[in-house]
């Protein structure tokens, strides 16, 4: 992208403003984020080591408490599981949509976005009604004689993953779809005519080409999953307590020191993931949801 853009940069033919003031274009957004986001956050971090008096006690106590390590591990595991499940659900859907006529694909994409119009909170209670031991699904299974006893679907990891991946699915589908759209169909057809079998074509050609979308979607879903608070609290068991739930609890107790220390730990983990991603795959890939 960088090379291409530099090469075609021909100031004479561009509207003056766009060339003369690239900073002007970036400035409002960046300034807004610096003033109302970065600055308050920085203050919060400073507060975590100075409130009530300057020390690192809360970090020490946070990092020494085995329970908190358990919570951090849970957060990472839940986010990873949610990402995997979402990918599993979204990949075939994105594939199908990208092979459809654009008109229909666009309509179906709107359908994918439909759940967003229902508040996350309401959806949580809908899942409770659906997944409970006497919920709609279990009653149907037991009533039809398929099962003798209701399945434990609610208040466990399963319910948390269902609730979270339901929320994340549209993000993943959109990310995959835009990459898959740019994959040249004739490539696949060519492979077919050259005698390559369908699975071969898929694994050798299609899958590698769709990987940018997979990486971008997974990173997005993984990071958003780490911040989930309402879903694990309402649908999970205590073993599904995540960092965000814990932070909320500490803040309510006015235990800002531990709460913010934990928040800084969370931000550090996510930041590390970003750096890792950048090293392994290049940050450009995340931004380049589309073809690059």
């Amino acid at each position: 992208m960088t090379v291409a853009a530099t090469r075609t940069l021909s100031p004479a033919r561009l509207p003056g403003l766009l060339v003369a003031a690239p900073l002007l274009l970036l400035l409002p957004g960046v300034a807004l984020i610096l003033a109302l986001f970065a600055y308050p956050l920085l203050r919060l971090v400073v507060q975590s080591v100075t409130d009530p008096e300057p020390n690192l006690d809360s970090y020490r106590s946070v990092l020494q408490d085995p329970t908190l390590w358990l919570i951090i591990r849970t957060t990472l595991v839940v986010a990873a599981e949610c990402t995997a499940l979402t990918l599993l659900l979204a990949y075939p859907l994105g594939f199908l949509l990208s092979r459809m006529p654009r008109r229909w694909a666009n309509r179906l994409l709107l359908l994918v976005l439909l759940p967003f119009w229902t508040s996350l909170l309401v959806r949580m209670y809908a899942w409770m009604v659906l997944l409970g031991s006497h919920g709609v699904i279990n009653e149907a299974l037991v009533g039809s004689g398929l099962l003798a006893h209701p399945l434990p679907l609610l208040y466990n990891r399963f319910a948390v993953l269902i609730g979270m991946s339901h929320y994340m699915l549209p993000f993943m589908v959109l990310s995959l779809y835009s990459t898959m759209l740019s994959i040249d169909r004739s490539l696949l057809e060519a492979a077919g005519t050259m005698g390559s079998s369908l699975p071969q074509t898929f694994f050798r050609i299609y899958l590698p080409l769709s990987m940018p979308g997979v990486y971008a979607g997974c990173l997005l879903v993984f990071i958003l999953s780490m911040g989930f608070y309402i879903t694990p609290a309402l649908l999970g068991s205590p073993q599904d307590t995540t960092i965000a739930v814990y932070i909320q609890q500490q803040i309510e107790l006015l235990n800002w020191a531990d709460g913010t220390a934990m928040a800084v730990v969370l931000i550090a983990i996510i930041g590390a993931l970003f750096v890792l991603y950048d090293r392994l795959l290049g940050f450009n890939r995340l931004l380049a949801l589309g073809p690059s």
Partner: protein
Amino acid sequence: MLNRMLLLAAASLLAFSGMQRARAQSDVVYINSSGGVLDDVFRKVDWDPFTKATGIRVINSAPVDNAKLRAMVLSGNTEWDVTEIDGGDFPRGIKQGLLQKLDLQQLPTKDMVEGSFNDYGVWDGPYSTILTWNTDIWPLTGKHPTSLMDLWNQQDFPGPRCIRKDAIDNIEFGALHAGVPRNGVYPVDQDKAYKELDKLKPNVAVWWTTGAQSVQVLVNRDCVMGTAWNGRPYQLVVRDGAHLGVAWEDAVLHMAWWVIPKGAKHSDAALKLIAFMQDPQRQAASAKESGYAGGNSHDADYLPENVRDFLATTPAHVGVSVSANDEWWDANAVAAERRFTSWVIGQ
């Protein structure tokens, strides 16, 4: 042409956002409480009539948030003139200098229950954490749970339980089950309490986190018995006909308080509003809708028996309850919650 479009867009944007910035006016009071149905009841019973009587508008917000209270007082820009405050947060708020002293002369103190007011606060809605169960399984006419201690009684009342995912109340229940007398619960002997909670844990299917969830799990029949704040089953049973029973023995009684934060911009109007809300008839009317009564000693006179059966302040209930010790909780909350979290997460 683009310029004109931009101008037009900017103008309509400004018109569109025509929200009134609340200015510091003398004829208004900002009150913060739990929100939801409770606020709707307060609005109908107290706040709108108050505006009618005094000309002072009441603007409400929710929810109760101690972190927010602290941040606004420390910043010197106090949004709330009155706020609710619960449990250990009350003594903590006093200690941290977040609250104003009240001029008790302005309150109808002679009609108020002893202990329902002090220098910094007035009872809002005292509430209890009680036992509630499904009456389809154990009808009120037959053998049914009568005490919080029946949480442990799998022999007579088998089935999954739901309790709150919080140390508050649960460690008190644990201590009581270990045989500690009700008046000796504080300071809580946590080692003893957790020995009992260990026995309860295998039967706890749901750890609730919101008031709504505590009764929804019973209505959905995910659990047969659990703990809840008394107003929740009240609203479902009396208003909506749900099949739930309640038991008060060994319940934990909590105080919620109306307080005036330091730096409140309309503290005179705030005190007036608090005084207005002490009227026994109005307190009875709001108890009828919410299941939470106030601190006026006469409000019970206006309440039918089926309502009093659900109130935390009914003397028969107070007599068999433990009163939460806010000072103890203030001093021990962080450590107790940390221990609880470790305990509940541990397999």
